[in-house]
């Protein structure tokens, strides 16, 4: 890196030209400035990594945690409440031994076997949502009619929340995450109502356990590992925060990528056995992943031959890493049959996405059901007019108008 580029400080997040295209700077950064200095919305400084190997190295390093509620860590925004990354409550689950213990417990509900057993239910939910879309007739907004409800219904089922309560869960989740559309008062009320609902729900499961994850965690009393009431609450909240919006956004982006060049959709219609690899390639090709993952460098280290001193806040751009030409052949092309596809959309190492088998199954089922039920599906807007979701941390598309 020349001293010239090292002195240059970019404002982060970088702007992309449209909802589906990457920011112009990525190529230049990967080639000439893999350890770039950036300024966050708070005004604090951080370092941005854009190459595959560097991003993977830092994300897999168990010493570095995403918890930015530490002395010296950069703040992302100046909001009073801070972002999800700065929440000290979540710190106990963010790293080290307590994280590992928690993860092993929760993982029981997320093994491939367990998720495969859920698949028929997910398919039924997806079919139900398509029934409703067909009843109303085209055009439809694939986000509000399908991508938004499906993952939250799945999480409701996972947590043993009744079908009659799942739309309440969807409302709370929406209010807690997409703050811009709601007043602060509505957000606070949603948080409180959700916490109260969860407390009641956990008590009900304690009295009368079912087949769900919470019941399983509650009744695991024969083991030493028992989660406290607080940990149970945080687990349920954490799963909703980590698993709803991410998956909803990804469904919207995947469908937009596949329909924006309709030959991709047609190829899947002809050959549905490509669904699995097409989902992986959509995860890799997603240029609109939002902020990236922050890590607090708690001990001196080195990346791309450059020293990263203790106290640095690093932003790992998985979307840029996923388009690194030195790792992926033809990285700027979407190849529906790419194998193997070691994208890092779900992170890497001890903290990599716990729900990835579930997310994959939801995305695969979405394609299966939509290809079968709505083969004539097409975008009802130009790809460059897809409205981006405005928000700092998550990327996504606000509305995906389709017809069939």
């Amino acid at each position, binding site marked *: 890196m020349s001293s010239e580029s090292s002195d240059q400080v970019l404002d982060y997040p970088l702007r992309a030209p449209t909802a589906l295209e990457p920011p112009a700077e990525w190529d230049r950064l990967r080639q000439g400035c893999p350890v770039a200095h950036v300024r966050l919305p708070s005004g604090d400084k951080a370092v941005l990594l854009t190459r595959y190997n560097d991003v993977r190295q830092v994300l897999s390093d168990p010493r570095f945690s995403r918890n930015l509620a530490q002395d010296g860590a950069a703040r992302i925004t100046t909001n009073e409440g801070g972002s999800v990354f700065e929440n000290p409550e979540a710190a106990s689950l963010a790293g080290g031994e307590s994280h590992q213990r928690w993860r092993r417990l929760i*993982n029981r509900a*997320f*093994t491939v076997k367990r998720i495969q057993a859920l698949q028929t239910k997910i398919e039924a939910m997806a079919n139900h949502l398509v029934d409703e879309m067909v009843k109303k007739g085209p055009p439809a907004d694939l986000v509000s009619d399908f991508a938004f409800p499906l993952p939250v219904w799945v999480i409701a089922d996972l947590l043993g929340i009744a079908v009659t309560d799942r739309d309440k869960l969807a409302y709370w989740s929406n209010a807690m995450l997409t703050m811009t559309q709601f007043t602060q008062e509505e957000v606070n009320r949603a948080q409180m109502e959700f916490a109260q609902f969860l407390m009641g729900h956990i008590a009900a499961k304690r009295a009368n356990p079912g087949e769900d994850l919470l019941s399983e965690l509650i009744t695991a009393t024969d083991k030493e590992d028992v989660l406290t009431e607080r940990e149970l609450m945080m687990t349920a909240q954490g799963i909703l925060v980590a698993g709803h919006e991410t998956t909803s956004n990804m469904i919207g982006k995947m469908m937009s990528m596949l329909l924006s060049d309709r030959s991709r959709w047609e190829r899947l219609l002809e050959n549905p056995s490509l669904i699995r690899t097409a989902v992986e390639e959509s995860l890799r090709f997603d240029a609109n992943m939002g902020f990236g993952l922050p890590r607090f460098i708690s001990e001196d280290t080195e990346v791309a031959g450059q020293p990263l001193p203790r106290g640095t806040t690093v932003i790992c751009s998985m979307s840029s890493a996923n388009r690194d030409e030195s790792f992926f052949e033809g990285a700027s092309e979407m190849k529906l049959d790419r*194998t193997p596809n*070691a994208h890092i959309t779900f*992170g890497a190492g001890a903290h*990599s*996405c*716990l729900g990835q*088998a579930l997310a994959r199954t939801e995305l695969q089922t979405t394609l299966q059901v939509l290809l079968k039920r709505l083969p004539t599906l097409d975008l009802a807007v130009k790809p460059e007019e897809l409205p981006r979701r405005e928000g700092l941390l998550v990327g996504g598309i606000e509305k995906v108008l389709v017809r069939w």
Partner: protein
Amino acid sequence: MGMRVLVEYEKCCGAGQCVMVAPKVFDQRDDGIVVLLDETPPPDQYKAVQEAVTVCPGAALRLEESA
């Protein structure tokens, strides 16, 4: 010449990618940690195992040639 699969269990984060890609060779315990079903898989499994090694998010899997 065959292939032998090596697992570093302490690196496994239990996300089950290997089970999705090569279910004849890998399984998971209840808590998600990988179980090696076949340490020296037959040649028709090499491609799937190779893919699992590449995509494992924990970099917990390796392949080596066995005599």
